[in-house]
């Protein structure tokens, strides 16, 4: 195919500049307007010329009329006809020569009609001084043409020419028909006409005679200018829905207007014809031009159309273009460029797609949720994490739907939508699609358009529920650790104090009992010594309670029927309750079994009831003592002491003591278990702290529920060992076989006073021989030398250098069957809780008195087990 060498631009330029229709239209329009205006002007000019010609003719007519009256004046007035009759005859002869006047009258100075022709008896003699023509002519002293008026003679509209003369006035009544004769000669087209109006605009000559006789006034149509007066020239007017062109020319002496009036459509018919000619011609030319341009453009536009098709394919993302036949140079270039552009686009799109896929993969692999929402806070996009959390249907949903409860989340997010550029961070509880409440940590940032207007926001959210829980747990553990460290430190200190205290008390009690032994029965001093011994026991008890609070009293842990333990305590409790207080019990017939010490249980119950009684005070009240089994869940919401209580069982037995007393506030509840804390002036402030220690010793926990004025409920939870009832214990007779009197006993204690007191009691009160040692090393040396002499070893646990356990092992290494009593100020259970290679036969709690020693000696009769747990002595 032929390849065009001309450029498309050149072809289009040619088509539109040389063939395009706009210049023709403009030129045609302008030429049409100019020629139309010219023709219209010539029509107006022609009509005006006719009007001027006619007005000259009318003026000539009037001059003739005037000459006629002047002739009468010359003949009748100046030559003075002698006889009046002759005057009438003369007038009659004159009237025969002129047709313009209907009648002629001669008035005297008064305005009275003296002569007239044709003669009329009704007129001759009447006074015409009231007539306008008379007064005007007389005033101006020159000929005057009157406006039309109704003739007295004929009753028709009449015009008069009043000609003032010496001694009177000659008046001629004009026959308007004669004026019509003048205007009727003029031809003004098919529908046009010539007419004459007087100075007032009243018609005095018109082809329609009715208009004359009706004194039709045309001033409203023919007047022009600012003063709305009849003026010479051309004008247009509209009458009965039709436009007219009027040309006015003034008649010089009378100020009448000769008017040539022609309907505008007729007057401007040539103009319309020219316009039509120009219009049609121009349209034809333009149409031809359009056809030519159209045909040219078809050739031009075919390759363009193909190009458009190709570009549309590119726009639709189809970058493979069909092969096209060669076209114009520009088109060919364009096609080449578009092909290259398509190639570039394809490679860029591929790269973009890969990038997009990678970004999508990145976004989907991010564990955090990434959410996008619009200005209405409706989610518009979410990554996989977001869809997993909120559900696939989250897109299009309003963000607030997922909010869990009132958290002021929107109040914090809203400022961002008020054009804030800050990244907003907030934690918010949200519902996951499975309905679970999760804590999300959000980061919000607004999105803006090019104008800087906020269009939405992008946010990331991380599920920090587990983190939050772990944090809470960590803080809880930390608190518990602090508490434990505090308790341990306190325990160590108290233990140390108790150890020394008990040693000293042991010395005191031993010496007191030795003194009592030496005193005669009748001695008065005995009573003081007995009181001192009692006081020493009381002091030992307090020391013991202190250890109990610190949890250093574990007591015995044996299966225990809690119901039975409580029931055993009830008589004692009832006895201590005053009459105004009612003790109510809700205890099942047989209870669950726990591992514990019945003594401790009784102590706990006793202390709680005592506390309840003190809360009730002097007035009436009720104490309810209840026992029931509760689930793990029931304990979860309670504030339990000790704080580090391990909740590892499904069921617990709950021993509750509730009262109707004064109750307590939250601050009091926090401190109620602290040692020496008391709301009362009386008491030691150890009751409830001991309870806590004892509860702890039973692996239990305690909770308080109280409000000021509403009483209090103390709930003690014990882990259930078994639900089954205990078999009845077998009564085994305790065989007490004391070490034979006179036997040799090795007393080992680092405290000289304790050592000496023990030696004194054993020797003096019990009749034993005693060898003492100040520490473990010495004891082992002595024992090694006289190992077969010793019947028993009384060994102190806490000693510098080699302690009690090490000494025991060393002694048993020398002689395996040597009975040993281990003495300590610490609680037996605590002492015995660890594993040791050797176990003593009995444990003796410091301070000990004579009876304690006897009991310990008795206990040595029992066999020794490797576990050591069988040692039960005090």
């Amino acid at each position, binding site marked *: 195919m032929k390849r065009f060498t001309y450029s498309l631009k050149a072809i289009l330029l040619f088509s539109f500049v040389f063939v395009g229709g706009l210049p023709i239209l403009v030129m045609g329009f302008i030429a049409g307007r100019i020629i139309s205006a010219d023709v219209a002007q010539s029509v107006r000019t022609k009509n005006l010329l006719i009007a001027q010609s006619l007005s000259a003719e009318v003026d000539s007519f009037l001059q003739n009329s005037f000459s006629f009256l002047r002739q009468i004046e010359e003949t009748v007035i100046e030559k003075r006809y002698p006889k009046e009759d002759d005057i009438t005859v003369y007038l009659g002869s004159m009237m025969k020569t002129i047709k313009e006047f209907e009648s002629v009258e001669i008035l005297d100075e008064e305005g009275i009609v003296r002569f007239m022709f044709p003669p009329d008896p009704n007129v001759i003699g009447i006074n015409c001084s009231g*007539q306008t023509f008379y007064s005007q002519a007389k005033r101006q002293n020159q000929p005057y043409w009157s406006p039309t008026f109704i003739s007295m003679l004929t009753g028709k509209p009449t015009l008069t020419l009043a000609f003032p003369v010496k001694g009177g006035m000659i008046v001629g009544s004009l026959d308007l028909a004669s004026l019509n004769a003048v205007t009727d000669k003029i031809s003004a087209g098919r529908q046009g006409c010539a007419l004459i109006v007087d100075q007032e605009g009243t018609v005095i000559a018109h082809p329609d005679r009715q208009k004359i006789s009706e004194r039709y006034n045309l001033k409203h149509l023919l007047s022009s200018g600012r003063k709305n007066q009849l003026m010479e020239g051309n004008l247009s007017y509209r009458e009965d829905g039709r436009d007219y062109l009027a040309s006015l020319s003034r008649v010089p002496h009378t100020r009448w207007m000769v008017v040539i009036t022609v309907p505008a459509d007729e007057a401007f018919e040539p103009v319309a014809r020219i316009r039509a000619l120009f219009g049609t011609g121009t349209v034809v030319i333009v149409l031809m031009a*359009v056809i030519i341009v159209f045909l040219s453009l078809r050739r031009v536009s075919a390759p363009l159309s193909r190009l458009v098709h190709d570009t549309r394919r590119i726009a639709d993302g189809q970058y493979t273009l069909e092969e096209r036949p060669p076209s114009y140079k520009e088109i060919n270039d364009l096609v080449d460029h578009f092909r290259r552009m398509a190639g570039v686009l394809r490679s860029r799109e591929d790269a973009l797609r890969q990038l997009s896929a990678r970004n999508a993969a990145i976004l989907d692999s991010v564990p955090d949720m990434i959410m996008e929402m619009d200005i209405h806070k409706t989610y518009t996009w979410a990554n996989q994490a977001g869809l997993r959390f909120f559900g696939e249907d989250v897109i299009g949903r309003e963000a607030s739907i997922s909010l869990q409860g009132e958290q002021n989340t929107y109040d914090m997010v809203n400022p961002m939508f008020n054009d804030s550029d800050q990244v907003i961070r907030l934690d918010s509880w949200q519902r996951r699609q499975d309905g679970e409440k999760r804590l999300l940590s959000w980061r919000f940032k607004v999105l803006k358009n090019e104008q800087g207007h906020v269009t939405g926001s992008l946010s990331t959210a991380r599920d920090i529920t587990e983190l939050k829980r772990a944090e809470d747990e960590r803080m809880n553990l930390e608190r518990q650790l602090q508490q434990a460290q505090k308790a341990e430190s306190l325990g160590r200190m108290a233990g140390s104090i108790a150890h020394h205290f008990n040693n000293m008390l042991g010395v005191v009690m031993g010496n007191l009992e030795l003194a009592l032994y030496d005193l005669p029965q009748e001695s008065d001093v005995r009573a003081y010594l007995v009181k001192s011994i009692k006081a020493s026991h009381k002091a030992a008890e307090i020391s013991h309670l202190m250890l109990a609070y610190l949890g250093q009293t574990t007591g015995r842990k044996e299966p225990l029927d809690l119901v039975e333990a409580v029931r055993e305590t009830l008589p004692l409790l009832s006895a201590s309750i005053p009459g105004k207080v009612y003790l109510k019990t809700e205890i099942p017939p047989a209870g669950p079994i726990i591992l514990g010490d019945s003594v401790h249980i009784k102590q706990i119950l006793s202390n709680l009831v005592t506390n309840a009684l003190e809360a009730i005070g002097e007035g009436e009240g009720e104490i309810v003592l209840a026992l029931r089994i509760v689930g793990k869940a029931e304990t979860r919401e309670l504030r339990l002491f000790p704080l580090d209580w391990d909740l590892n069982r499904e069921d617990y037995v709950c021993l509750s003591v509730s009262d109707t007393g004064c109750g307590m506030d939250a601050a009091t509840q926090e401190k109620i278990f602290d040692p020496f804390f008391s709301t009362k002036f009386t008491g030691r402030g150890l009751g409830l702290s001991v309870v806590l220690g004892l509860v702890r010793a039973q692996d239990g926990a305690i909770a308080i529920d109280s409000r000021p004025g509403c009483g209090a409920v103390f709930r003690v939870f014990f882990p259930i060992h078994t639900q089954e009832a205990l078999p009845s214990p077998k009564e085994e007779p305790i065989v007490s076989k004391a070490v034979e009197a006179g036997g040799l006993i090795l007393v080992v204690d680092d405290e000289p006073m304790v050592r000496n007191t023990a030696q004194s009691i054993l020797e003096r009160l019990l009749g034993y021989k005693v060898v003492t040692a100040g520490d473990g090393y010495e004891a082992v040396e002595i024992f090694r030398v006289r190992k077969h002499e010793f019947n028993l070893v009384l060994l102190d646990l806490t000693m510098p250098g080699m302690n009690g356990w090490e000494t025991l092992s060393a002694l048993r290494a020398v002689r395996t069957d040597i009975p040993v009593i281990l003495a300590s100020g610490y609680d037996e259970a605590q002492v015995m809780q660890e594993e040791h290679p050797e176990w003593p036969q009995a444990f003796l709690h410091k301070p000990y008195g004579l009876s304690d020693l006897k009991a310990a000696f008795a206990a040595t009769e029992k066999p020794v087990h490797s576990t050591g747990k069988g040692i039960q002595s005090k």
Partner: protein
Amino acid sequence: MLLVLMVFYAAFCCVGTIGAADMDPYRIGFVGGLTGRSSDLGIQGRNGAMLAVEEINQQGGINGRPLKLITKDDKQDPQTALKVDRELIDEKVIAIIGHMTSAMSEAAVPLMNQRKILMISPTTSTNKLTGIDDYFLRVIDPNTLLTNIGASYAFEKTGLRRVAAVYDLSNRTYSEEFIANFKSKFERLGGQVVSMVTFTAGPGIIFKNLVQEVLRTDPDGIIIAASAIDTAMICQHVRMTGSKIPIFISGWAQTPDLLHHGGPAVEGAIGTMYQDLDSQARPFVAFKDKFKTRFGGDGPTFAAIFSYDAVMVLKESLYVNPDPQQLKETILKQKTFQGLQGTFEIDSYGDARRKVFVITISNNRFKAIEQ
């Protein structure tokens, strides 16, 4: 674009001036004697109505609709009057302003009633149409009031006792009734109408003989019921005899033609009328100026004034209710209208109530001497 331009261009070239399509106008007829000896009444009436219509149209018409005035000449002939009335009805007029003389109105009313076309007469004063619920309305009183006041003035103020009456039979309905009413009142007052001379206006009258007949009974005053020209001619011939007795004229004659043709002979003549041409009422002064500017000459007469008022009655009623079918009811319901010289009322029979002035001619002008 090019084609659009071409279409506009062709339209411009081929089509001439296209007039704006006006809204369909209200067509109003005017009918009166526009030609002949007494045509001054009709022409003045027509001009008054034309001025009113032009004024209303300049102000945008009535509710946006213009008025179109179609004028007809009844030639003071009852047959012609009926003919032109039918023509007007055929041209779909909504009302007719006219006729201007009582005789023509009397002839036309049956046709109006039959065709249910409202006729509002500016100047008809005959009592024969008084107190009848018909399609004839007017904006002036029946002439009884004028004649009663005129008779009283003649008897009491002028001191006349023997009056000769002369009247034109061409408008017999008016003139005969006018003279009869005058006579009735005058004689009740104690005066006497000593002679009643009639004539029919037209070329054949010899006014000299007519006047001799009037003066034959030696009256001390004359009452004339005729058109302006005929009244002027009678006055001229009375004064030509040397008689200076007072002359009373009818309202019919009170036009500039009386002054022009009567000249000194009509000086001092007395009449009664519903208008004062010297009134300084602002609407009236404005109307007079406009009238003179529009038509030139001597300005408006009572005929022009009452025609103008009659068109304004139509206008006010159409404003209130644009339905031409209910024109009569609307006018009668509205009752009170603003005239050029103050308000006037139209009663339920379509007869108006206006003030009456006693007029005399002084220095070739009409002048009110009593109200």
